[in-house]
């Protein structure tokens, strides 16, 4: 039997991708569990309160780290390995080292989360894992990213296209951000206000320069790959790319509005956030002008439905983010739960939805086995419902919170907290729905990756199981 070029590439990457996707799924479940615990603590402070490991501060931070580094990191590796190898038309290099570094990455995050729950937290945003863990994570990340770049370097065509720019840039920007932040916070600690600014800048830039460009790159790949149409107004994509590269690290500092920092820092942040309208508009035009030419495909093709949900969510809430960066509005929303809206929108509504789409597109091609449509569809609708509930609760609750907190005459506990408590209850329900949908997702992918996990117990069915794996 003769294989096509694509099948040879998929075969070369099969075990690496399976490893990363399987571990990403487990991290997703861990994060869902921690997210529920954190949400439940806001409605019932006595929930799990007898366990020192599960105080709110620890659980909340552990959830963010499990989500961004566990689920985010592993799924970024899996999906970028596949897309980069496919677009380069080259077989994956360094499979053994990739899996070895992947194991180190996951062990590192496990130890890091245990460290957080144990109280050995590092006081910097998104760098909370104990500082001994970071060299481990950095080295394993570098090895994985290097082999993806090596695969890209052995591409058959010299020219590169939009998905490659975005994905490779996100792979390179994470270590760059990390080195800048680690140098300024740990090696040569900056003094005074600068440390807080740097810490906050890293936490936000991580979302804007690691998760976001990656998800945009995946959308740039999947939309033409599924619809069969080239990206509409493709010549704008390069403009959007450089706009994100230049503006995003500046724009994130608008979160310091009203903080004890020199006034020009939030002012620049606001201006750059307004300028972020350009890349948002470019990405939105590229994606939606292409996909909505065939509304049927968007509706009927599940991976594409996930991706378009993600890009729509990106467009709408990025514009909302621009509005919230204006000083007049930020005054209201600065110290409210609207910050949760931004984080959860990025990671659940945008990044995760696009990665789900990419995994559903990729896995049948890599493993040769299909995922039942019903299960995928159930996952989509529960995710969409959960994300919408979560984001609306944080958005409306955050506005209520911000407006009420501006009125010093109101009693804090009986008026302000009481009026946002229902929104916390909604987020708690949303996290249950999201947890359920993520469980379905993990079962879907694990059933494809390991169709017969107990075959070693059952020698009589050994032969058929072997055939299924091969």
């Amino acid at each position, binding site marked *: 039997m003769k294989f096509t070029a694509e099948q040879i590439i998929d075969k070369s990457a099969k075990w690496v991708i399976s490893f990363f996707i399987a571990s990403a799924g487990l991290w997703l479940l861990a994060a869902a569990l921690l997210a529920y615990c954190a949400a439940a603590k806001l409605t019932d402070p006595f929930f799990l309160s007898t366990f020192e490991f599960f105080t709110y501060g620890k659980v909340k931070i552990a959830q963010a780290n499990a989500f961004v580094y566990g689920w985010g990191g592993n799924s970024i590796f899996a999906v970028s390995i596949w897309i980069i190898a496919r677009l380069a038309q080259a077989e994956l290099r360094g499979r053994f080292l990739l899996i070895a570094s992947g194991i180190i990455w996951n062990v590192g995050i496990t130890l890091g989360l245990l460290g957080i729950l144990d109280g050995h937290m590092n006081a910097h945003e998104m760098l909370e894992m104990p500082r001994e863990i970071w060299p481990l994570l950095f080295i394993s990340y570098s090895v994985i990213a290097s082999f993806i770049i090596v695969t890209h370097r052995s591409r058959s065509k010299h020219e590169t296209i939009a998905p490659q720019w975005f994905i490779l840039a996100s792979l390179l920007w994470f270590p760059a951000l990390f080195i800048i932040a680690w140098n300024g916070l740990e090696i040569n600690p900056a003094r005074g206000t600068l440390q807080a600014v740097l810490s906050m800048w890293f936490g936000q830039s991580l979302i804007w320069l690691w998760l976001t460009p990656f998800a945009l790159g995946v959308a740039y790949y999947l939309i033409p790959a599924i619809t*069969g149409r080239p990206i509409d107004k493709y010549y704008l994509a390069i403009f959007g790319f450089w706009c994100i590269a230049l503006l995003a690290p500046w724009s994130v500092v608008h979160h310091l509005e009203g903080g004890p920092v020199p006034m020009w820092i939030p002012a620049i942040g606001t201006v750059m956030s307004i300028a972020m309208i350009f890349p948002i508009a470019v990405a939105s035009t590229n994606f939606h002008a292409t996909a909505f030419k065939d509304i049927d495909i968007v509706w009927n093709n599940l991976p594409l439905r996930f991706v378009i949900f993600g890009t729509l969510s990106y467009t709408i809430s990025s514009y909302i983010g621009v509005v919230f960066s204006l000083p007049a509005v930020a005054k209201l929303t600065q110290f409210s739960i609207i910050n949760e809206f931004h984080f959860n929108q990025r990671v659940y509504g945008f990044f995760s939805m696009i990665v789900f789409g990419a995994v559903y597109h990729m896995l049948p091609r890599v493993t040769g086995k299909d995922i039942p449509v019903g299960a995928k569809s159930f996952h989509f609708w529960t995710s969409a419902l959960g994300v919408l509930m979560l984001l609306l609760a944080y958005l409306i609750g955050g506005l209520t919170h911000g407006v009420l907190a501006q009125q010093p005459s109101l009693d804090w506990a009986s008026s302000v907290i009481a009026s946002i408590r229902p929104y916390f209850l909604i987020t708690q329900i949303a996290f249950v729905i999201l947890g359920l949908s993520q469980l379905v997702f993990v079962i879907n992918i694990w059933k494809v990756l390991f169709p017969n996990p107990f075959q070693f117990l059952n020698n009589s069915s050994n032969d058929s199981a072997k055939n299924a794996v091969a």
Partner: protein
Amino acid sequence: MAPAKFDGMKDDDMVEIHSNLGREKHPPTKGFLVAPLIFVFGCLIFVCSIQLAHSTNSFQVHPPQEIVELTEEEKEALRLERKLDSGKKIFTSKCASCHQPNGLGIATQYPPLAGSEWVSANPELITKIILKGLKGEITVKGEKYGTSPAANMVAVPINDREIANVSTYVRNAWGNSASEVFESDVADIRTNTAGQNEQWIGEALQSEYLSGASTE
């Protein structure tokens, strides 16, 4: 162009097609009108510049201090207020244990300062007493004090400025109203009495400074 089929686009084609799209030269008017676009971008850049100009505080670290111009009278009032504040602090720490925070002293033990003719007389008197201390019998507001040696006052070891501040405070507190005492005058008295190691004798000072008053 690849046909718009449901089974999508092959990766090879995708790279090929998009590379060609990237190489293609686009006349700027293709797809949309250029004038509204420039207008919108221009407005955005204008709004951004206004925002920057208004809110960056010229890229300084701290917001500028407000400069307040005071008239001569206001400056004088401020100086006197500060002097009295300082005097009050010195009084509380050095004097109030005997003369009491209300300046009334303790009957038969420590003479009062409130309404005392010793305090409001010539400023030299109070300065000399603070500088060197006081012993012997005295009469204050018609009462006799200093009959026992335990109530003698010792010299207070503070500098000229502090003596000026605390005397000014005492001479203007609790209903007293007398002239201000200046640091230079205190310094003069200190040099003039530099040779003296003993406390002042109560009767001597009383006859020197208060003879005109009807204390007998």
